[in-house]
């Protein structure tokens, strides 16, 4: 445990950025823009993954969430710089994660400034490269846009997984589970009965959080409200099935609580991309983050609320959550049967 913790805190919990994917839209393709792009991709902070051809591609690439930033060079960049002394770069950053967006902005700005300094050494009249930044999806860089999806995920996970696992293990501990199993009730009826109150509780929770974030924090719901609801219900069911799984492997309420806290809360906070960007983590942690349902749910909520995208962009994440749910349920049934034998 302490080893895992120090590794997590050392590597994952960093606000620095690393290998962030960016795209470049170079409308002039001259000497200067080339060397700036080279500088950017040479740094360890960024990886240039895509070269765009037109302005039209920018929107869809952001919606897909493949890059965190797009750097746009204006037409005749080099000429502008030499004639007027001022050239403009447009920096578009995905601000669904405001902290990272800010850091990306600062880093790219300093890279361009460096370049300007280099060429200014030989020339009398100082050139200026002026970055113009725009925060996409969250123009005011409100950090609440980051916290609402995260907090919603944590609360749904907490209520659904932890409460379910605790309440089922409570029945085991008290011995009432045995009585219920001896009764004509089928095991699945018992479990569904245990789970239903938490389904309602979680749905109400989700609704309250969404309403509060809309009316108090003025968070937009760009996409379909209906889809947001459906995805939330899906995540609630994923968490519930995780809770059931936990209850099949733990005998006491305390164990269930420990597993829920250590096994769910910690990864949800640290590895889901809620606070710390996943792209900046070392590769093993990035791989691990994929098995955390919360990661996918956060992508989904941000997608629906901030980017206004629909299932067309989110089908992959939705399928993953669905797959995880089925997996957890099947595993619980298996575990449960083994225990009965």
């Amino acid at each position, binding site marked *: 445990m302490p080893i895992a913790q120090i590794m997590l805190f050392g590597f994952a919990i960093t606000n620095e950025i690393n290998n962030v994917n960016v795209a470049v839209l170079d409308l002039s393709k001259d000497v200067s823009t080339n060397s700036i792009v080279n500088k950017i991709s040479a740094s360890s902070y960024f990886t240039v993954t895509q070269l765009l051809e037109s302005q039209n591609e920018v929107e869809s690439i952001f919606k897909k969430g493949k890059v965190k930033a797009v750097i746009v060079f204006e037409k005749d960049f080099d000429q502008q710089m030499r004639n007027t002394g001022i050239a403009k770069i447009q920096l578009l950053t995905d601000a669904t994660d405001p902290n990272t967006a800010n850091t990306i902005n600062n880093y790219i700005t300093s890279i361009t400034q460096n370049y300007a300094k280099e060429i200014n050494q030989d020339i009398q009249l100082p050139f200026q490269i002026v970055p113009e930044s725009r925060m996409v999806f969250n123009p005011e860089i409100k950090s609440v846009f980051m916290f609402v999806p995260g907090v919603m995920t944590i609360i749904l996970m907490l209520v659904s997984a932890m409460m379910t696992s605790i309440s089922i293990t409570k029945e085991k501990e008290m*011995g*009432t589970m045995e*009585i219920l199993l001896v*009764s*004509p009730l089928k095991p699945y009826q018992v479990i569904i009965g245990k789970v239903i109150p938490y389904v309602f509780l979680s749905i109400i929770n989700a609704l309250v959080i969404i309403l509060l974030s809309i009316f108090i924090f003025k968070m937009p719901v760009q996409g379909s409200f209906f889809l947001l609801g459906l995805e939330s219900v899906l995540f609630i069911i994923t968490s519930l099935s995780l809770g059931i799984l936990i209850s099949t492997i733990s005998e006491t309420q305390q164990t269930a609580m420990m597993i829920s806290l250590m096994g769910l809360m910690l990864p949800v906070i640290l590895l889901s991309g809620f606070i710390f960007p996943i792209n900046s983590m070392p590769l093993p942690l990035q791989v691990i983050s994929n098995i955390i349902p919360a990661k996918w749910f956060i992508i989904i909520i941000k997608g629906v609320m901030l980017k206004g995208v629909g299932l067309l962009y989110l089908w992959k994440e939705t399928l993953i959550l669905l797959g995880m749910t089925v997996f957890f349920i099947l595993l619980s049934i298996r575990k449960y049967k083994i225990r*009965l034998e």
Partner: protein
Amino acid sequence: MSVRDENIIEVEGLTKAFGDFKAVNEISFVVKRGEIFGFLGANGAGKTTAMKMLIGISTPTSGKAKVAGFDVFTSAEDIKKNIGYMSQKFALYDDLTVRENITFFGGIYGLKRQQIKQKSTQLIKELGLDGVENQLVGSLPLGWKQKISFSVAMLHEPKIVFLDEPTGGVDPITRRQFWEMIYKAADEGTTIFVTTHYMDEAEYCNRVSIMVNGKIEALDTPQKLKEQFKADNMNDVFLKLARG
């Protein structure tokens, strides 16, 4: 006593193995309808495992067993409808009242609303629980809880009641009262299958089986067992057997 010549539990060569370890090793016995059958054994002798197979929550490894006419392999669900069960842990909901508990368990066994109402009124009266029926069960003394627990297990008028160490930790007077309830149920034709640690209670049973290391080493009326093992009481019989 109204023991009838009709087998309600038939067990033959019933075995439960966990890997190489046989927790229950080819046990065979029959229980007659209306009988009070004592199922004794030291801790870890395999009593609870054997009982779990009979009440349909654990599948036997091999052997045959019929409970209330149903096969434990194929008709566990039918068995569950025809039996009552009281576990060694007191297992009603502490945070429900007496009446709520009765209603809940009545509902689980598919009793109708009207029946539940009538039954709970009758039960509360019989147990002398007037005035506390709306108290939380958690606040009642253990002896009362056990009696309620037994009555709840009898709520749906099962053919057989399985009692797993029902009187653990209860004072002698309450135990006495508890056995009176058992006798009354047996008189009405219910078969009682009871495990216990108290050897004086073993004397109350019609017939007694003693399990040692997964096997039934003795099975007869308390009287005959005492003669067979030349002992004054069941305690000595048990000690002679358990020590080998």
